[in-house]
């Protein structure tokens, strides 16, 4: 058990820091308040990701066969920590490199890999995630959007909601029902967003413009070859994807950066002497470090070639705790952050709002832990 970075890992982190220091514009902190899915940040992210790709820093953890450098998961973690610490300038493309690409590598057909992976690797792809529906949020398995096979096509009808990036994404990673079996009746289709019959409506939100949408599917036709994996395999595939997603978002790095910034603001104002305020800040930092070590424990297993287990929900819940604690500290002791005086802190707050909701609500993580980590008996259905 070792808690030190190798020389190579330290150099890798410094390389990313220098790259970002040179790349990000002077007004980045104010600019970053545009939501990750806003047109402004999406456009900017394409520039950032293209440059990261040129530097070999977009997908260094992917296998060499697919354009990566085959680096171990620690490099993915270092890269993600530095990106999140800066406010995630990759915008929605973080999803591509974290889980959409790896999921396509693992479950995609040759044609799907050829079609989608190069564009992701070049930093030019944007995906949206068609999971939640008005009647299927945390209870994802009750989704009703239907795909009926008609010859060599699927015909899709239904509605998705709270979909990020939907206006600008080229492709939707869509969950559809192909039979009535609750979980084994769900299938993944990779749907081009310019397919006739798709209508997107933006929903104004607290987390930045362009971030949340409704997506309507009205007799949308895609070829059978758009199916990822087999019919009914979606639950298995997204369980794999979400474990990667949960580990691939080091929110603790941004939360810690926000806390450090908040403390500096209070120090500069001469308002950081009160023992209770100092203690509250230390507790929030401790929760960030708790989340960091919980995540590192899983990265260690993955670096040894082991599959991620339900313990990724443990790390995810610790991360939600730290995000909440950091955001609440700022609201309580640096309240002017939310009226735009401290753009970095406002940006953090907007990112933190979704921490316990997106990619599986915090309470769902507790359900997973209770059943699959602690093995508590379940109530008979």
């Amino acid at each position: 058990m070792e808690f030190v970075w190798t020389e190579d890992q330290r150099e890798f982190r410094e390389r990313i820091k220098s790259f970002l220091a040179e790349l990000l514009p002077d007004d980045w902190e104010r600019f970053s308040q545009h939501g990750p899915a806003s047109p402004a940040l999406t456009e900017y992210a394409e520039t950032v990701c293209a440059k990261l790709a040129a530097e070999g820093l977009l997908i260094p953890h992917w296998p060499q066969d697919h354009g990566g450098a085959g680096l171990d998961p620690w490099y993915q973690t270092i890269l993600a920590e530095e990106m999140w610490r800066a406010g995630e300038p990759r915008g929605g493309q973080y999803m591509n490199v974290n889980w959409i690409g790896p999921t396509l590598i693992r479950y995609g057909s040759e044609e799907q890999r050829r079609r989608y992976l190069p564009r992701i690797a070049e930093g030019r792809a944007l995906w949206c995630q068609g999971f939640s529906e008005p009647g299927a949020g945390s209870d994802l398995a009750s989704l009703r959007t239907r795909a009926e096979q008609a010859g060599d096509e699927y015909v899709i009808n239904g509605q998705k909601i709270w979909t990020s990036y939907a206006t600008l994404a080229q492709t939707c990673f869509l969950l559809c029902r192909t039979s009535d079996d609750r979980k084994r009746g769900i299938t993944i289709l990779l749907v081009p967003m310019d397919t006739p019959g798709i209508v997107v409506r933006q929903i104004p939100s607290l987390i930045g413009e362009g971030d949340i949408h409704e997506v309507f599917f009205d007799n949308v036709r895609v070829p059978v070859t758009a199916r990822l994996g087999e019919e009914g395999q979606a639950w298995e595939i997204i369980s794999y994807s979400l474990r990667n997603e949960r580990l691939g978002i080091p929110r603790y790095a941004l939360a810690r950066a926000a806390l450090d910034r908040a403390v500096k603001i209070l120090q500069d104002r001469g308002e950081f002497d009160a023992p209770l305020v100092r203690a509250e800040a230390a507790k929030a930092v401790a929760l960030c470090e708790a989340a960091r070590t919980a995540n590192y424990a899983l990265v260690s297993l993955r670096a040894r070639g082991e599959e991620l287990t339900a313990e990724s929900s443990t790390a995810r819940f610790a991360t939600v705790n730290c995000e909440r604690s950091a955001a609440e500290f700022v609201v309580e002791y640096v309240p002017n952050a939310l009226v735009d005086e401290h753009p970095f802190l406002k940006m953090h707050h907007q990112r933190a709002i979704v921490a316990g909701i997106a990619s599986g609500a915090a309470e769902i993580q507790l359900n997973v832990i209770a059943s699959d980590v602690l093995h508590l008996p379940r109530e008979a259905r």
Partner: protein
Amino acid sequence: MDLTLSDLQSSILTALDSLTKGYSAPDLHDAPLSTQSETLDRELRDGGFLDVMSDPELGAVTAAIIVERISRLPVASETGASMFFGGALPAQSSSAVAVMSGARAPFPIRYLAPGTRIVVLEADRTSYFVAQPDQIRAEPESLYAYPVATLLHMPDDRATLEIRPEEAQRRWRVALAAEIAGLLRAALDSTISHVSEREQFGRKIATFQAVRHRLAQAHVNTNSTYWLAMKAAATETPEDAAMALWHAQESARNAVYDFHQFLGGMGMTLEHPLHLWTYRLKALISELGGRAGNAAAAADALWPREMPTARR
């Protein structure tokens, strides 16, 4: 960075589990207020488990791993103080080591008995003495589930140890955080066994979401407590040690309440061994100033206060 156990650490834990196997099952129907085993203590000493700190290949992380594992046992065995301070004490002896924060008496101390080597964490030095029979009052009715006695008088002729006060506090925080991590894990396991069997309203208690979520949160906190303790052992920084102990005490406070709630009447009796872990946790919640003291210590280490400049 690699948080998996090394081959050597795995081997040590395998040997430790083998040695403690006979002590790992609590008596489910007649648990004492506290329980110890001189045989186990001797076997741990003779097996060299308490000496890993002095082995450069093993060091503090392995010591913390061992403390965490031993503290899961229903029997109380003094390991943390011996492992983290034993090497600094002048007299080699097989007696237990106790650590107390501040030179205060009368005060209850874990593992205090005639001959116990007492390390006193003071503001300006770290001192040491060997407890004498006339300084001690036994406390057989203590609820704390450790062997506890009260130190009646603090001797003035304490020897000074060559450990800076800050360093002594840091070490003790790591040892305590590791011990709490093990106690939390054992208490959680014990609670899970109960709620997985006990039925109310025609269902096992563990099927109620109000119970499941709190147990899941206890797992999250126990997991984080373990990793923060290990990290603090490795980095040897005062901020990591203080954050680890604050997190451990915060987690303990929440878990102890919840676990006893879930055991209901059974947890109030000595017919169930839960108290062996929860009342040890209660003893450790107050160490080094409790949550307030350790949060303040973490803040001071993270953001040192500026020394006031002298006026002309």
